[in-house]
């Protein structure tokens, strides 16, 4: 089940995730340059994947059990071939969702009166194109980082919060299932209750709360500038008490807003340890050969360079599965027979580690940090 599914849907899990999901980053081009961006996306990033190559890869991956494509970026609404990718994925039977900063979600009240006719026509074409894509999606999530001051500071744009909020309202009023994906640092935890109340008023059906991943720009000293004074700015939610606080806030918010699905990416280590059999297909080599790739590697990430990675965008490159250029059934079978061993060892280690933890786990991010330690054992310890 994903954030945008109806509650009560039947769930057959793959690992700790209920859906077999591909996180697709067709391009790193973005109209913002957020200080916490894990993929270093921004206006200066050029290029991107060819839609035909993406659709061929999605065709192969559909045969290997994946059922959901989540489009991210960069800003996916800036990707010129987005409609080709969405249409292709839908034709293959994927459920397709998208996460956006909301800036390009068409504002139907803005007729572009200040523009000349050429620019107005150009804008109108783009609005129609984006509108058509949005209508074809199974769900849209708008990203938020806090209340207006924090959000705008992190995004480096004075109207970012206002535009993102307008996008939620616009989509919700149009009958689209719209969620909010909220990235939280230690500094913005106090803003969560008011932010969720604001989002509830705009009509979100779900809120996903996740600690900022300490990757890309967020991992550099200049990351997360300009946050409100009074609390340590830009600190990750990586200490036990902060994780506990965030988890408890999420539960409290779930009760305060019963009509919204509140989901937190953190989970008690003891709960995951009890559920470790979810990874049996991966951890037992004899079973792995007879099961689908989606049952073994979930989520799967396709980067803007065409690399296939397990779990997360910043998972260490030594665990890469291959590239979409050369992806076929043979490559996947070979990976399942041999290439998956190092990933299996890593995940076994991550699961074994749960037994000794009494705190909350940001499972996919903690596995990603562990991948760095596995690949570079002499470096300073990661956050896990």
């Amino acid at each position: 089940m994903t954030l945008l599914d109806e509650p009560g849907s039947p769930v057959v899990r793959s690992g700790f995730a209920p859906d077999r999901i591909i996180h697709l980053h067709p391009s790193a081009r973005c109209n913002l340059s957020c200080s916490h961006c894990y993929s270093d996306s921004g206006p200066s990033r050029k290029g991107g994947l060819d839609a035909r190559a993406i659709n061929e890869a999605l065709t192969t991956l559909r045969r290997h059990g994946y059922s959901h494509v989540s489009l991210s970026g960069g800003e996916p609404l800036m990707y010129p071939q987005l409609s080709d990718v969405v249409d292709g994925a839908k034709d293959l039977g994927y459920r397709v969702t998208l996460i956006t900063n909301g800036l390009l979600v068409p504002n139907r009240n803005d007729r572009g009166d200040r523009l000349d006719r050429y620019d107005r026509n150009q804008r109108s074409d783009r609005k129609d194109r984006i509108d058509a894509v949005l209508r074809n999606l199974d769900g849209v999530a708008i990203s938020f980082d806090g209340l207006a001051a924090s959000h705008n500071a992190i995004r480096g744009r004075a109207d970012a919060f206002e535009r993102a909020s307008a996008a939620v309202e616009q989509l919700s009023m149009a009958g689209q299932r719209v969620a909010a994906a909220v990235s939280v640092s230690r500094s913005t935890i106090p803003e969560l209750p008011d932010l969720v109340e604001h989002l509830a008023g705009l009509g979100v059906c779900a809120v996903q709360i996740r600690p900022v991943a300490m990757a890309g720009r967020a991992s550099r000293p200049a990351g997360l500038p300009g946050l409100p004074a009074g609390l340590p700015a830009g600190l990750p939610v990586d200490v036990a008490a902060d994780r506990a606080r965030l988890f408890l806030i999420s539960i409290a918010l779930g009760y305060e807003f019963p009509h919204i699905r509140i989901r937190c990416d953190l989970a008690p280590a003891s709960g995951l340890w009890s559920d470790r059999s979810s990874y049996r297909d991966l951890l037992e080599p004899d079973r792995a050969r007879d099961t689908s790739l989606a049952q073994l590697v979930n989520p799967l990430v396709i980067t803007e360079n065409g690399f296939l990675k397990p779990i997360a965008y910043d998972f260490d490159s030594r665990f890469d599965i291959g590239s979409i250029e050369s992806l076929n059934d043979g490559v996947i079978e070979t990976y399942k027979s041999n290439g998956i061993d190092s990933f299996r060892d890593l995940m076994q280690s991550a699961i074994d580690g749960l037994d000794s933890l009494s705190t909350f786990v940001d499972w996919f991010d903690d596995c990603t940090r562990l991948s760095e330690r596995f690949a570079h054992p002499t470096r300073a310890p990661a956050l896990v």
Partner: protein
Amino acid sequence: MKTKDLTTRMSQRLANYKLDDKVIASLADRILLDGVQIARFDVCMYGICVDYFTDKHPTLEMLDHRRGVVRWEVFPYGIIDWDRFHVRVAFAVDELEAKGAMRDFVG
């Protein structure tokens, strides 16, 4: 004070960093019980009351005194769902200002 006021303040009280990190960490340790799912979480006259759902028979070992449990009740679903139990537990949390609020355990 209305229930909505109390619950709104619950998330804000947890979020505003006035509750010490140690209190938060200890609270999380106390209310997380293996094999049961938290359905509701609210302030009450004892501190915090938590509603759990479980498909296992609730046992006293789950709720030993070290967790600061002051009261608990079990509601079997019975014929509606034989293997499902609703367990309501009150935990003493001295640091929560709503501890003295006039709101009974059954709320």
